[in-house]
């Protein structure tokens, strides 16, 4: 064990001594140490260039060496960079090495040293380094000058996204320096007492004129700045290509990509280099460059296009054979010869590209929507024949060429137009007619459709019309209508005519179109049938005709509502019994009428069917103008006679009558409906569109109603516009009016009659009061010489009797009936037996014309109502005795006469005298009229008076007439 320990110690000592020896050997300077180290500064690129040499190398000796370079900043101990630079060193060679500093060199001192070793690739770790060279100091700040402030780097150009370090160097440490990037203050890191560093990461492009960074002291006396130009990354040129048109110049083009965003002087340049010839050219443009082909026949070219700016270099390569990149120039001198109606020959020339090149030319012909293509092989001149062309048609021919042997690109097209010659029209014009009978004549309007371009074969100049009378074959008429007319009007008689229409151009005549206009229009009544249209048109079909027909014609108007209906027609063959009529003029909501004619073998058209329809039905747009009539308290009538169902935007199927009422009850025949405004009303439905009256019944008198009449069709009903308001009248007002009006009329009539007959009325009702002294009776009496006869004085008037008439209750007794009644007479004066002396007869004066009589109170006859109480009668008599007697008798008779039914009859003497018998008086009343005729009253001598018919009767009696009678 001890032996093992001694052996181990000995081994360790031996190893230690070996290492010591080895280090002594390595510390010896190598014969190839770097010498003459010089450092150069490039402030613009922030680079340090090192230059040194290696001595002691044998002549022609080459030694592979590695140089270790160490760079420190601020102080030697602060090593920031160590790099091994390997190279092969020759005798007397000066070596170079560069290092770019991220920090501007002006911002801090730098120290550089290096050492060398032989570069042994097998055992690189066991290289034996030379001694370090001495530190080389790089201090740019010493040469800056005496300005108080500096900012570095100066106007640097970087790519977008780079990291940039900026610093400022201040000569006055007391001053407080602020730095700004685009106006925004930056926060820096102090590197030295007078140096501050700012790190900008991922700088972005802002503008062409660069990003402004500046620093200024707090005194404001110093401001320094830099412009940082930020470039967008230079792109590699794309689509680099070269070609030639004439084999003398190559034109190379490329896509430079997006702009770098730098000022023109900082922008990239493009260089073209051809490796076979070794030529190089600087391109003046950013996207293309010209290259002169060498006069010697160089076929192969190897181009390198280099895009380069201060920061980056991009290259693309292109290798090609010149003859494979021929892009011929466009053909020229394109001409057309021998142009006929259907054929033409085209010739052209091509630019020469060498005698041994053949070109392939492509010819295209455009005409009437068709394109034909031909390929022609051409050396100098090209030629192509076109056949099967249409007459009078403009064609467009174009030609281009390419290298036939090595196709590269087609040349540009060369265009030329030509027009074929005209030919006679190939088709007869499509003719139709419209016949109207006016005052025994037929007004025939001929229409024809212009021939299509293919049919016309040229410009149509005029149309010839030959009218041949079929009834009188010798008579025919000729018309020539200049184009572009498409119709004419003919005035014909009732004969049948055959009309030929031909179209003419400058070359010839078209076949004739023949139509027969019959003297008998033969427009039989045909029932109209409804058809449903679609957006594509109207699909019409008709029954096939049993006889021979040469075809059918469908006729319609494009503008049925316009003044000119714009007649259209469509001809179909005899085997066709259906067609679809479409027109751009068809509009929704317009009714179109179609008439289908059959054309007989004699070319006579006759009407077969009528159809009508809408391309699209629309809801009615207007409501009818409704007139209300026969308004009663229970009903009214609505009518809309003027509403035309033909001019509506759809087929009217009927009407809806809406009735709003406060009651909201709907009677039979109507249903409740809710309008769009949530109003509830009654809806009456009229299914017949021709029914244009409606009676609204079951209404309430003196009620408010609103009604609306709107048409409806299969697509809806008319607008729910304004309702018409109506209020039903009072139920009794009409009756009252019926009664009151005639009454008023009658009263007026009576008044008028009374006015007109006033004199007569006065005479009848208000006769002049006769003056007893002027009475003719007096003269008559006087003539009889009766000296005692005199006019009775009112003072002497003593009533002799009062006649009281009884009347049965409930019955009005006529004057004739009074005869049967037995009036009770009150004899106020003594009868003949008791009457001792002669006394005058009593008479009454009429109060109506002698008021003084009542005032005298001696012989008062107060006009009292017959129903006056009997007690009042006592006042009528003034003499006391009379009063008493009257009271007695009256009271006696009162028990026999029921109250209220008593009347007094005053019987005048004259009446008594005239009748001669007091009992006969009621039988012959003075007048049963409204007013009684006045009877003259006078005192008549007793002798002249008629004797009483009975002993109990007095000489004269007074009758108080019944209430119904007038008294005077």
């Amino acid at each position, binding site marked *: 064990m001890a032996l093992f320990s001694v052996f181990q110690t000995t081994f360790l000592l031996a190893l230690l001594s070996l290492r010591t020896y080895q280090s002594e050997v390595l510390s010896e300077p190598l014969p190839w140490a770097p010498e003459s180290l010089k450092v150069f500064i490039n402030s613009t690129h922030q680079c340090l260039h090192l230059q040194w040499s290696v001595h002691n190398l044998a002549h022609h000796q080459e030694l592979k060496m590695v140089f270790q370079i160490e760079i420190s900043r601020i102080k030697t101990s602060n090593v920031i960079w160590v790099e091994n630079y390997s190279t092969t060193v020759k005798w007397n060679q000066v070596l170079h090495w560069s290092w770019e500093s991220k920090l501007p060199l002006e911002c801090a001192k730098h120290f550089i040293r290096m050492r060398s070793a032989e570069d042994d690739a097998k055992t690189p770790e066991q290289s034996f380094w030379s001694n370090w060279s001495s530190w080389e100091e790089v201090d740019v700040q010493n040469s800056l000058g005496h300005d108080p402030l500096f900012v570095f780097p*100066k*106007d640097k150009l970087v790519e977008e996204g780079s990291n940039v370090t900026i610093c400022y160097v201040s000569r006055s440490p007391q001053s407080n320096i602020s730095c*700004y990037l*685009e*106006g925004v203050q930056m926060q820096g890191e102090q590197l030295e007492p007078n140096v501050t560093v700012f790190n900008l990461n991922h700088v972005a492009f*802002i*503008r*062409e*004129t*660069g*990003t*402004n960074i*500046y620093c*200024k002291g707090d005194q*404001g*006396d*110093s*401001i*320094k*700045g*830099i*412009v940082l*130009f930020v470039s967008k990354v230079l792109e590699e040129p794309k689509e680099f290509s070269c070609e030639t048109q004439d084999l003398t110049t190559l034109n190379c083009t490329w896509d430079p990509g997006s702009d770098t965003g730098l*000022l*023109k002087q900082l922008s990239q340049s493009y260089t073209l280099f051809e490796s076979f010839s070794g030529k190089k050219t600087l391109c003046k443009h950013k996207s293309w460059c010209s290259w002169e082909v060498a006069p010697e026949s160089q076929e192969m070219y190897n181009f390198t296009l280099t895009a380069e700016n201060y920061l980056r270099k991009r290259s693309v390569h292109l290798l090609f054979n010149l003859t494979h990149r021929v892009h011929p120039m466009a053909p020229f001198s394109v001409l057309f010869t021998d142009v006929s109606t259907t054929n033409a020959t085209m010739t052209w020339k091509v630019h020469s590209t060498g005698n041994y090149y053949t070109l392939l030319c492509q010819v295209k012909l455009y005409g009437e929507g068709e394109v034909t293509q031909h390929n022609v092989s051409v050396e100098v001149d090209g030629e192509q024949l076109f056949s099967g062309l249409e007459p009078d048609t403009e064609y467009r021919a174009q030609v281009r060429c390419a290298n036939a042997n090595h196709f590269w690109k087609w040349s540009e097209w060369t265009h030329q137009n030509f027009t074929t010659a005209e030919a006679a029209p190939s088709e007869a014009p499509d003719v139709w007619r419209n016949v109207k009978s006016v005052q025994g004549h037929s007004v025939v309007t001929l229409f024809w459709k212009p021939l299509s371009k293919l049919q016309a074969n040229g410009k149509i100049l005029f149309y010839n019309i030959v009218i041949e009378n079929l009834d009188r074959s010798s008579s025919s008429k000729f018309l020539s209508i200049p184009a572009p007319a498409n119709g004419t009007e003919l005035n014909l008689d009732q004969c049948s005519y055959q009309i030929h229409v031909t179209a003419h151009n400058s070359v010839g005549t078209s076949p004739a179109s023949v139509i027969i206009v019959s003297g008998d229009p033969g427009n039989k009544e045909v029932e109209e049938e409804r058809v449903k249209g679609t957006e594509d048109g109207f699909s019409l079909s008709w029954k096939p005709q049993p006889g021979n027909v040469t075809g059918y014609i469908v006729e319609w108007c494009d503008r049925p509502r316009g003044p000119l209906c714009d007649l259209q027609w469509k001809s179909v063959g005899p085997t066709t019994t259906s067609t679809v009529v479409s027109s751009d003029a068809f509009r929704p909501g317009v009714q179109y009428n179609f008439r289908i004619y059959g054309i007989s073998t004699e070319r006579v058209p006759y009407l077969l069917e009528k159809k009508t329809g809408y391309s699209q039905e629309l809801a009615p747009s207007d409501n009818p103008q409704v007139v209300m009539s026969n308004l009663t308290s229970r009903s009214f009538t609505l009518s809309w006679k003027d509403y035309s169902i033909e001019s509506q935007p759809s087929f009217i199927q009927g009407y809806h009558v809406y009735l709003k009422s406060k009651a909201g009850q709907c009677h039979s025949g109507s249903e409740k409906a809710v309008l769009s405004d949530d109003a509830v009303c009654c809806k009456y439905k009229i299914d017949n569109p021709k029914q244009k009256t409606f009676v609204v019944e079951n209404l309430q008198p003196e009620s408010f109603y609103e009604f609306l009449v709107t048409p409806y069709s299969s697509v809806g009903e008319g607008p729910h516009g304004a309702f018409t308001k109506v209020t039903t009248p009072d139920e009794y007002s009409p009756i009252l009016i019926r009664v009151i009006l005639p009454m008023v009329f009658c009263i007026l009539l009576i008044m008028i009659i009374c006015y007109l007959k006033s004199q007569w009325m006065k005479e009848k009702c208000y006769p002049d009061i006769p003056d007893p002294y002027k009475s003719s009776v007096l003269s008559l009496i006087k003539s009889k010489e009766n000296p005692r006869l005199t006019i009775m004085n009112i003072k002497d008037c003593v009533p002799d009797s009062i006649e009281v008439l009884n009347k049965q209750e409930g019955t009005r007794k006529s004057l004739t009936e009074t005869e049967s009644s037995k009036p009770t007479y009150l004899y106020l004066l003594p009868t003949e037996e008791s009457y001792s002396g002669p006394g005058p007869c009593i008479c009454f004066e009429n109060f109506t014309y002698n008021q003084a009589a009542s005032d005298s109170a001696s012989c008062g006859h107060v006009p009292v109502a017959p129903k006056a109480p009997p007690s009042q009668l006592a006042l009528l008599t003034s003499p006391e005795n009379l009063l008493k007697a009257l009271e007695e008798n009256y009271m006696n008779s009162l028990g026999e006469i029921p109250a209220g039914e008593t009347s007094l009859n005053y019987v005048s003497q004259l009446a008594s005298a005239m009748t001669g018998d007091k009992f006969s008086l009621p039988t012959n009343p003075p007048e049963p009229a409204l007013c009684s005729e006045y009877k003259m009253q006078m005192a008549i001598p007793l002798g002249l008076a008629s004797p009483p018919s009975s002993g109990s009767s007095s000489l004269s009696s007074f009758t108080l007439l019944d209430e119904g009678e007038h008294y005077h």
Partner: protein
Amino acid sequence: MDLRAGDSWGMLACLCTVLWHLPAVPALNRTGDPGPGPSIQKTYDLTRYLEHQLRSLAGTYLNYLGPPFNEPDFNPPRLGAETLPRATVNLDVWRSLNDKLRLTQNYEAYSHLLCYLRGLNRQAATAELRRSLAHFCTSLQGLLGSIAGVMAALGYPLPQPLPGTEPTWAPGPAHSDFLQKMDDFWLLKELQTWLWRSAKDFNRLKKKMQPPAAAVTLHLEARGF
């Protein structure tokens, strides 16, 4: 300094004012010989018009340079622009200037400024900016001709440029881009100050050249007879 983007309405109003005054200018001179009065008035009007035109141009150009040059309160020390003619002058000195010296200083200043401005135009990157600068240069050339006309009317000779002292706007290799921008800024600022000063100069000259009111009255009376 009030170098801001001028509004086009202001320029239009000023142009209208110039046009309005043009027909009225002959009325200033009621004698047969127009004298320098109308020319001075025209020159004055032109300086006002150019002043408004420059506001718009300076706004566009300083935005083109970027901040801090387009910031309203940017007022750097006048570095590197020593060759530019200074418009600022002591007030007493300005008052004591005679007409000839006043006009000569104006003429020389605008001759230099025009030359610098043309150099600015050559450097401008955008076509629109070049158009605006060219238009302003034409107007400034007109002002220079107008001043020359006034000097000729007053019998003053035009200052002759010394040979070899043609102002150039070609910065040396040490001239950084930031200093170049600073020079552009100072050129526009000095130009505006000169236009302000010229307006005062020509206004002073105008007042000086106007005949006394009494003389005009007498003259009118004489014409009335």
